[in-house]
């Protein structure tokens, strides 16, 4: 729907964002960046560089200590509770630890994301089977999530984050437990979502995911944004 052109409005903007964890761990320092609507961006850096922290700040699970984070032109602190909830439903998040409900079935876990957004039942079930097919999980709909392998659970978490075709998808190490082949499934899904207008921001160690594909990569080092550009 939305073509990636230079005139596409920014979806995420960070201005001199800093985050310090007590007592004095500087997780992020003066990070400024702008990600346009429908863009597919990777955040890289070694362990402890601040990737997850940046994802959490953009997803409003935490507040920056300095600077400002805007999503769709709006700052989190200025939204009331109902607006924040509505925004949450429009941001899909793949958590590093998945945050699934282990006893509930695969489809129940995904359906929850669509139910809180009051999607019609038909749309929900159609979307779930579509996503499970893409994630190669067809046939496992009724399985309790706790009986799945880590890699399968990770794909359920990705399907849930993508379920509402959100405006923004934040993924923290979405291929951490996946082989290269399966990692490509995820990359393809993210590309499809981006082509349909979703802004996708992915934190990853996995250089195979973005190398050779000409995607924009933000490189963090000890909380500082080192490079921002295409990597080949």
């Amino acid at each position, binding site marked *: 729907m939305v073509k990636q052109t230079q005139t596409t409005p920014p979806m995420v903007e960070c201005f001199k964002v800093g985050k310090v964890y007590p007592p004095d761990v500087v997780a992020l320092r003066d990070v400024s960046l702008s990600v346009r609507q429908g863009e597919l961006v990777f955040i890289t850096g070694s362990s402890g560089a601040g990737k997850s922290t940046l994802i959490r700040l953009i997803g409003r699970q935490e507040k920056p200590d300095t600077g400002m984070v805007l999503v769709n032109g709006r700052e989190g602190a200025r939204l009331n509770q*109902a607006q924040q909830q509505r925004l949450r439903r*429009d941001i899909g998040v793949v958590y590093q630890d998945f945050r699934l*409900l282990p006893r509930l079935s695969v489809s129940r876990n995904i359906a*929850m994301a669509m139910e*809180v957004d*009051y999607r019609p039942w038909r749309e929900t079930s159609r979307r779930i089977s579509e996503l499970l097919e893409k994630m190669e999980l067809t046939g496992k709909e009724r399985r309790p999530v706790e009986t799945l392998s880590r890699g399968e659970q990770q794909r359920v978490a990705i399907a849930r984050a993508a379920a509402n075709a959100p405006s923004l998808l934040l993924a923290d190490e979405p291929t951490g437990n996946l082989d290269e082949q399966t990692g490509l499934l995820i990359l393809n899904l993210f590309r499809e979502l981006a082509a349909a207008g979703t802004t996708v921001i992915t934190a990853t160690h996995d250089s195979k995911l973005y190398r050779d594909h000409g995607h924009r990569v933000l490189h963090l080092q000890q909380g500082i944004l080192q490079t921002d550009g295409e990597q080949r």
Partner: protein
Amino acid sequence: MKGKPRLTTFLVAILQQTGRNLARSWPTQSMSLLTVALSVLIFAFFLLIHLNMLAAGAKLGDELRLTIYLDEDINPAMQPRIREQIHQFGDIAEVRFISREQAMARFARRLGDEQDILRDLAPDFLPPSIEVVPRPGLLGLNQLSQLADFLSTLPHVSRVQYGQEWLQHFNSFNRLLRIVVLVSAALLTLNMIFTVSRTIQLTLAARREELEILRLLGADRAFVGTPFLAEGLLQGGLGSMLGLGSLYLIFQWTTNQLAGAGILGLFTPVFLPTWLLGLIIGASALLCLFSSLAAINKSLQV
């Protein structure tokens, strides 16, 4: 892209969520429902007895009359004045003046075949009296005793009789019942609030993990809170219906037993009127709704 959801979609989603929650927590829910039912049963039981005692009292009161025993016959010329004074007091159906002779004649009639025993008595053996019959249902027991007080101030009155002792017992028993009804209503209220909010705390604790995920997914107040409100409403509504239903069965059974024993010739016991049943059910449902509202407002920061 994200407009307001259609109302039906919204309702279906919330109903589904409520149903799923109920399906998972029904053991806790039904314990709480039974507690509500039991306290409604106890309260309504006392209320039923109280109402029936009041009805019986009203019926007995209708048959009450005051008899004023006099030292002397009242001069017939005075009678209209006294009659007027009594009528001024309130709604009086009838005032009868009974002379010594009339009293004797009535007594003789009542004795029937055995009136021989009166032969040796002086014809003025019985005192003259005034009988005052209040209009049925119009004089409460309080007014009756006020009327009695007033009548005892008339000239030549020796004694006013209207079954005071019995009435006082009856009255104080009814007062006691009223206190029991009020106290059990208060306990019922406390019990409901306590039970419902405790049940909600239990279910909240059991669903903590799920609620955290729902919060992350951006669920709004309506989605998270409505199932809890519906649970409160159901516990109050169904619980009180169950309590009142059991009371009705007990009532039916008891009246059948008593009818066999022939005790009910005096008055017909009545069940709680429909409007009162509706009131109890509605009030319980609302009460439970509000206590669940209070409980989730306290513990759900959604």
